[in-house]
């Protein structure tokens, strides 16, 4: 017998897609059932009350969570999001309903014993509700009370060897695609670079010293499965600068219909026989491919490595061997100044084990942004306000046409005084000697 009637939510139990309502009810039922086994450290009916509160939102079509107060664990300025309900009398189980962000392992692989340990901890000290995972990448533990925060942190660090992630005006928990672990297109070890940068910048991740949030994301190739180019203040995207490796026999096998194109991704519909001209060569954005004598040719110098041909024929075409990454800066969602995609700052950089090159770019950018960024200004907004030139200046990177999709079309160049012979100071009397009034 549920604690609250939820006639509206109940309508979300039907339909094929996994029902979060069914899941919540299951969780609520389980807590009721186990209340004699487990000495739950937060209210047994936390999930029941969450259902009740959510039903109220479904009725009123308004949210019932208040601004979070500042809660957290000692010495950290991130990792916990405070949340309080505006109807605590009706729904005492969710009067406090704080979130904790747990820094996920890169690539989001798990062993069951680890997650089971986390489940035990979270059942005991929290609501048992999770997000696997939050948008940024963390394991999100959804709903606990203030007194439990330090306890959970203590158990995480002491028993699970596991730290919290970021929130607030911090470095946010870095995230990577699965990279070399299971993808033939990874141009560098995204998981390792993600791990290394996470460890290198633990202080920035846990102690807010930035104007606003700052995100790193690591994509192994231009396909961008972790969407770094859309949402990371710094995106590290794998690429290569030598030639695409061609297996002509496999090309022939694709042409001959022996291998399904695009890794079989289009198998659910009859698109007709594979046509390399139409499906690969004509779609190449730089038109740098052609067939000659039954062989596929690529003018690699003109290739921009968009991945289409490789995606279509993964068994015939492979990424080059001279691999590295591009760095793009400034991606963000619309708030406040409009959305941005990442802008290319470093066209190519090799990744060596010291990570010095990467760190130098990061730290030069932070030094500038921390000095010049306004309150709640994302890196992209600072770039927009001070100009891309400024980003080049602070990182010591030379201007390059690869930095632009096109040169400026306005002739409104801000020349600096030192660039103009004779400087800016001129004498009106000298001028008037040539140009009487």
């Amino acid at each position, binding site marked *: 017998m549920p604690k609250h009637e939820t006639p509206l939510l109940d309508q979300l139990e*039907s339909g094929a897609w996994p*029902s979060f309502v069914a899941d919540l009810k299951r969780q609520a039922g389980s807590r009721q059932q186990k209340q004699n086994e487990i*000495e739950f450290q937060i209210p047994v009916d936390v999930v029941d009350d969450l259902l009740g509160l959510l039903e109220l939102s479904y009725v009123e079509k308004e949210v019932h969570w208040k601004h979070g107060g500042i809660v957290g664990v000692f010495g950290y300025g991130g990792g916990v999001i405070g949340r309080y309900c505006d109807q605590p009398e009706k729904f005492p189980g969710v009067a406090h309903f704080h979130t904790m962000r747990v820094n996920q*392992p890169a690539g989001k692989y798990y062993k069951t014993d680890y997650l089971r340990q986390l489940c035990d901890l979270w059942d005991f000290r929290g609501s048992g509700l999770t997000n696997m995972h939050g948008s940024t990448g963390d394991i999100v533990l959804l709903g606990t009370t203030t007194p439990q925060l*330090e306890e959970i942190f203590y158990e995480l660090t002491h028993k699970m060897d596991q730290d919290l992630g970021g929130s607030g005006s911090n470095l946010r928990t870095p995230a990577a695609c699965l990279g070399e672990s299971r993808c033939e297109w990874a141009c560098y070890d995204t998981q390792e670079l993600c791990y290394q940068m996470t460890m290198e910048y633990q202080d920035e991740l846990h102690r807010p010293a930035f104007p606003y949030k700052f995100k790193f994301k690591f994509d192994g190739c231009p396909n961008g499965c972790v969407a770094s180019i859309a949402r990371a203040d710094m995106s590290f995207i794998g690429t290569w600068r030598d030639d695409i490796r061609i297996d002509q026999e496999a090309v022939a096998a694709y042409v001959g219909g022996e291998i399904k194109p695009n*890794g079989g*991704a289009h198998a659910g519909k009859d698109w007709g026989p594979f046509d390399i001209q139409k499906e690969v060569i004509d779609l190449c954005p730089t038109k740098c491919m052609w067939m000659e004598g039954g062989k596929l040719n690529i003018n690699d110098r003109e290739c921009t490595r968009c991945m289409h041909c490789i995606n279509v024929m993964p068994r015939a075409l492979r990424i080059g061997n001279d691999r590295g990454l591009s760095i793009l800066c400034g991606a963000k969602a*619309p708030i406040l100044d409009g959305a941005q995609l990442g802008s290319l700052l470093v066209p190519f950089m090799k990744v060596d084990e010291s990570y010095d090159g990467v760190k130098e770019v990061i730290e030069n950018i932070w030094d500038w942004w921390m000095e010049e960024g306004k309150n709640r200004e994302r890196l992209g907004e600072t770039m927009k306000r001070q100009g891309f030139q400024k980003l080049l200046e602070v990182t010591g990177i030379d201007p390059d046409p690869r930095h632009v999709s096109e040169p400026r079309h306005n002739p409104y160049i801000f020349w600096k005084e030192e660039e103009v012979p004779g400087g800016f100071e001129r004498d009106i009397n000298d001028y008037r000697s040539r140009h009487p009034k």
Partner: protein
Amino acid sequence: MAFISSGYNPDKPMEDRITDIGPRHYSEFLPPVIKNNKGKWLWHEILEPGVLMHKAESGDEVYTVRCGSPRLMGTETLREALEIADKHCDGYLRFTTRNNIEFMVDSKDKVQPLKDDLQSRKHEGGSYKFPVGGTGAGLTNIVHTQGWIHCHTPASDASGTVKVVMDELFEEFQQMRFPAQLRISMACCLNMCGAVHCSDIAILGYHRKPPIIDHKEVENLCEIPLAVAACPTAAIRPAKTTITDDRTGEEKTVKTVAIKNERCMFCGNCYTMCPALPLTDAEGDGLVIMAGGKVSNRISEPKFSKVVVAFIPNETPRWPSLAKCMRQLVDAYVKGAKKYERFGDWAERIGWERFFEVTGLEFTHHLIDDFRDPAYYTWRQTTNFKF
């Protein structure tokens, strides 16, 4: 319930404290076949919807069965996934960026039993627990934010809208008959924790009324200069007003803010800075639909989604107008796009005038950009258009 200590001593928070240890190293969690072949993969193939095979230089193969999840998951369901991983996958599993669960096995014969097991598990109401799919030229899981479940600024629910859309399009999750992959995303307000602005289709929670000013509280809850500075359109200015004290009944003058309603575009950034400026409103709140974005660099450059429906109301619990709109968008795309063509590339190829025709959506003045200088660049500066 009695408080049970973890061992943490609140009087001596630094005692035995462990900090800044970061996440566990991923290598601890890699299944052996993954670990052994890391960086040595040759190619992959999608064997059927939801099932991938990766081939390594060593000759090893790893078979991945992908299934959907609602992202919001209790430990009960999570433990069930762990059981499955123990039973079929030697205790390993992983999650994708788009909240799918992946179960990996190292030989082909293990695939079918795993798949059957996953598909067989259902909730009482009939929904799948672990529907297999989400690969290739089909629909994958919708990434989304918290909505009314846990956020303080949402203009809609995230889990509910996503459930409705995934129910509507469920077949496509288990099929691969689209022209290309279709990435749908949902964010419950403009803050876009989920950064949905580069999705094939984005569902965005959205306010339409300026904040209510809680004059009694502004002074107490907010730093007025921060609230003023938070407004991207300079619609907010400091002000004073007279209120009646709740307890004493006396009139008093308080510091507050004034808002020029006609300059407000409902972003809610002021509310983030100042809790005395709530926006949420049953009639005002709802959804915007954006379409045509992408993050991949494949063929065309990454691009933003465009606003194609200015408003869909919050029709709880099953948002029928939303479901209908999504169906219109998907059907038109499937009908019109060429193989490999992403949603936005299709729209651009046929032209937006044709897009509104074939989707049956209405083009309203709301869809014309009027935000700052760059708006100009979205108007049509050519005579090239289709009748």
